[in-house]
């Protein structure tokens, strides 16, 4: 990875394309959980279907992220933004598989209760935080 700048660029491009898919999946699921879009459609179905695109793109992001890291490991090790990103990523994934999933199953075709709405907002904030911290790695 340390040989060509185009190798790095290509991995960055993969990282960004996967980001678009991940962002879209998270947003659509959480807006459904908030009751803002696709009302009346099963939150369980939406959550299950979009978990495929979400997890696939997350996998692509982690793999391309590791490749990017191998180029800039020294810089990232000392970067507070990178540490924040990893902490937020761990929190986002943990939340996604636990409370967020329960909220989706609980809501199904009905109107979301207050806890489901909170779960959607927490999820959006965590994933957004991962992205913002990620952007900050290149700036700080």
């Amino acid at each position, binding site marked *: 990875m340390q040989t060509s*700048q*185009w190798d790095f*660029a290509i991995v*960055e*491009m993969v990282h*960004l*394309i996967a*980001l*678009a*898919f*991940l*962002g*879209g*999946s998270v*947003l*659509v699921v959480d*807006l*459904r959980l908030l009751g803002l*879009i*696709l009302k009346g*459609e*099963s939150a369980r*179905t*939406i959550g299950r*279907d*979009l978990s*495929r*695109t979400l997890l696939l793109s997350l996998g692509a992001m982690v793999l391309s992220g590791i490749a990017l890291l191998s180029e800039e490991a020294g810089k990232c090790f000392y970067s507070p933004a990178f540490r924040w990103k990893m902490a937020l990523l761990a929190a986002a994934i943990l939340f996604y598989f636990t409370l967020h999933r329960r909220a989706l199953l609980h809501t199904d075709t009905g109107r979301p209760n207050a806890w489901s709405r909170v779960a959607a907002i927490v999820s959006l904030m965590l994933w957004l935080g991962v*992205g*913002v911290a990620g*952007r900050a790695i290149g*700036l700080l």
Partner: protein
Amino acid sequence: MLQHLCQILYDSHFGTMLRESDNAFSVVESVHVLSITLLIGTISVLDLRMLGVILRPIAVTRVARGVLPLTWAGFAVSFVSGFLLFWAEAAHMYSNPAFRAKLILLALVGLNPLIFHTTVYRRAHEWEMLHVSPWRARAAAIASLTLWSGVIVAGRAIAYF
């Protein structure tokens, strides 16, 4: 003529301010990336629905009504933030091959829904419940996914020229 216009933008007070600022350019850049995520992330949900990959039990028109307002919001913000980024670097952008490629891809990716909405989507009520949409809708979905990915690739490449 176009080159001259780019130079005027580049030399303008606002363009220079944005280019030489410590943070403003980075902030606009971040907004640009985030809004592109909104744009492409939401339209890809509709594309994947038409391909029959996800959300099969939900009518295509329902999915479209759910995601398209988000897609348009993403488009509006990425267009404005993208124009600001262009303003700051206009003189360099004029001859940047990746920037030119991105503009061509954007023209194509704009043509795609124009054709789609005036043809096969007009009779969407006939096929909206099909798990896999008719081939013309699938072709539009594949074109959309491919071209938007191309926009990201070209956009990222701009910084490398």
